[in-house]
């Protein structure tokens, strides 16, 4: 039984809106833990467009997704929120008024007064190539991520893709696999040049193969793969013998477990009121891309505003009966103390 982490608020999602929620909650002394499936903060900004410019963040005429993330992290630093990455919140259970239990797929258990769903477009999940029959091999011969490297020892591994995940796992699994083949549609890679160089060295040393082409079919029986049928770039078809295929085609967003938490949903979004950004379950808030209300715009700046209003109500749940004084960060010495600038 794992130790239960008790806290004021759990924020689900470390995208820009989840990060800014740490700030707004921090100003009203609501302590939080932040959970994300990804291995780093930033949500879509970090995963989908770190290098691309954003032009509509107030007072930042131009900022990239990666920069925005690092600036937010700097801004929320004083509040000492704890981050839990590589964890998907799978369960949200209400035990009573302002008493929620959350569980993650990694075995973490939280108990909190308030829950802030900042899950954006949902959980990032690996894209599954629409190869006929692929479902029947999933979990036995086809894997979309590597949880334990040992599971691949002694296997005939075929890795498909040309990004960092594909190249990193090619290099990391090659020493323990029985055989290793990398298949990609072109002889050019978006992965880091260093990994590409390393891969080419392994090929030159005869330790692995690199083939050009795209998988069109799978051969095997009872969930055990024997070969992948590949269309080469010259149009000819050939088979690559393998019992373990790892396709790396990037990530896509799926609503995921949020759908199973008993909240009202509207077209895969969570309806909220526009005074507190609270869901149909009191104490559970939804901010950022995941929520919906009349006039909703899926913009980062909208999520920031939603975080500020949400925090007012979260304060009331933490401190029933207490009045929250409206203060400016510019002039309030108590806010400045929290920010560590005074």
């Amino acid at each position: 039984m794992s130790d239960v982490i008790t806290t004021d608020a759990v924020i689900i999602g470390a995208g820009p809106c989840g990060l800014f929620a740490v700030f707004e909650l921090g100003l009203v002394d609501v302590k939080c833990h932040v959970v994300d499936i990804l291995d780093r903060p930033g949500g879509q900004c970090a995963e989908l467009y770190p290098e691309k410019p954003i032009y509509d963040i107030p007072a930042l005429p131009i900022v990239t997704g990666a920069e925005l993330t690092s600036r937010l992290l700097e801004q929320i630093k004083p509040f000492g929120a704890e981050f839990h990455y590589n964890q998907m919140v799978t369960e949200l259970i209400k035990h009573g008024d302002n008493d929620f239990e959350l569980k993650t797929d990694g075995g973490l258990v939280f108990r909190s007064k308030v829950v802030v769903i900042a899950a954006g477009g949902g959980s990032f999940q690996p894209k599954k190539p629409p190869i006929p029959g692929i479902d029947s091999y999933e979990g036995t011969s086809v894997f979309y991520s590597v949880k334990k490297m040992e599971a691949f020892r002694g296997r005939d591994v075929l890795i498909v893709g040309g990004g960092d995940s594909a190249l990193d796992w090619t290099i990391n699994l090659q020493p323990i696999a029985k055989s290793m083949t990398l298949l990609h549609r072109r002889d050019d890679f978006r992965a880091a040049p260093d990994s590409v160089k390393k891969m080419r060295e392994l090929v030159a040393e005869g330790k692995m193969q690199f083939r050009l082409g795209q998988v069109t079919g799978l051969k095997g029986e009872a969930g055990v793969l024997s070969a992948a049928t590949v269309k080469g770039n010259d149009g000819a078809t050939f088979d690559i013998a393998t019992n373990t295929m790892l396709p790396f085609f990037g990530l896509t967003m799926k609503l995921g477990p949020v759908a199973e938490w008993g909240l009202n949903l509207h077209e895969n979004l969570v309806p909220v009121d526009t005074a507190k950004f609270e869901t149909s379950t009191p104490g559970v808030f939804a901010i950022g891309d995941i929520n919906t209300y009349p006039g909703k715009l899926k913009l980062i700046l909208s999520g920031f505003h939603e975080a500020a209003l949400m925090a007012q109500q979260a304060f009331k749940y933490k401190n029933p009966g207490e009045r929250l004084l409206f203060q400016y960060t510019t002039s309030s010495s108590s806010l400045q103390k929290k920010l560590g600038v005074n």
Partner: protein
Amino acid sequence: MAKITFIQHNGAEQTCDGSPGMSVMETAIKNMVPGIDADCGGACACATCHVYVEPEWVDKAGPRNPMEEDMLDFAFDVQDSSRLSCQIKVTDALDGLRVRVPAKQF
């Protein structure tokens, strides 16, 4: 105005008016053409606006840009005629353009 025809996997055709300056993806979304998901809204960050340009139009549609070429790594069944439709700008020269929509964006 340029007429753009989207051909579905099952052969169904839909011809839409594209305005110069818009992308082929935007033309599809505006006209609710099925099969163009465009999850990232045209930022060349999702590859769910994949189309096959009909052979006679490949040259006119122009070459892929490097970012698009990278992003096509995340599409399925990429062919020589594959493009990301958010990266094709509608011009008068593309009046009559015909593109095929894959069975499934992924």
